[in-house]
């Protein structure tokens, strides 16, 4: 038993993350279904639901957009993909360099060189995608503005 833990302790992290994600799903489900239930009650009584209740149905993306364009945020909100691509390139590139160094010169197993190659290819591909997007991508913004978001 102890040996098993020694060999696989790091699995706690991915498995823990998965359990957390499952809890998040259930929590969100609970919140959404409660909100919808209340909305139904309002509708059955022929009353207008409060705006705050309708706002609870927003997705995280819409919420982030609303915050960014509000007086508190005051910056241009970019959709998910565009926001993270440069960070991903840097992260994958750094991992490639680190693993490559350890695999080639640090006396690590060959598997680290293979990992470095994989991360390097990922960083390169993401870089090409980001460059294409920056050069030819449409400049659309305010994707989530609608009557509600105002």
């Amino acid at each position, binding site marked *: 038993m102890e040996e*098993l833990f020694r060999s696989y302790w790091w699995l706690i992290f991915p498995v823990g993350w998965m359990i957390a994600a*499952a809890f998040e*799903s259930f929590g969100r489900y609970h919140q*959404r279904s409660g909100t*919808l239930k209340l909305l139904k009650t309002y*509708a059955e009584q022929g009353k207008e639901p409060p705006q705050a209740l*309708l706002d609870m*149905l927003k997705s995280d993306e819409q919420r982030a957009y609303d915050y960014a364009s509000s007086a508190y945020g005051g910056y241009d909100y970019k959709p998910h993909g565009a926001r993270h691509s440069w960070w991903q390139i840097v992260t994958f590139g750094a991992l490639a360099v680190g693993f490559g160094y350890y695999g080639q010169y640090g006396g690590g197993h060959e598997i680290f060189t293979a990992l470095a190659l994989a991360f390097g290819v990922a960083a390169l591909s993401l870089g090409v995608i980001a460059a294409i997007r920056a050069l030819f991508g449409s400049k659309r913004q305010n994707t989530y503005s*609608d009557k509600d978001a105002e």
Partner: protein
Amino acid sequence: MDTRQLILELWASYWWLSIPFGFMVLGIIRMVVRGDIERKRLEVIKTYIDRGMDVPDALKRETF
């Protein structure tokens, strides 16, 4: 070979399967939960329409 040893050996070879399998389970949970929310959303929309009221914009888009 006893069962315990067999399980340990199988785990040593195939522990990595727990990761794709975990993602599969997560995906199924999300799918079921999302489906149920969409069903409830349509029910609320129906209530609005049955009563001849305007459907709020917040209900018209996907909510999960």
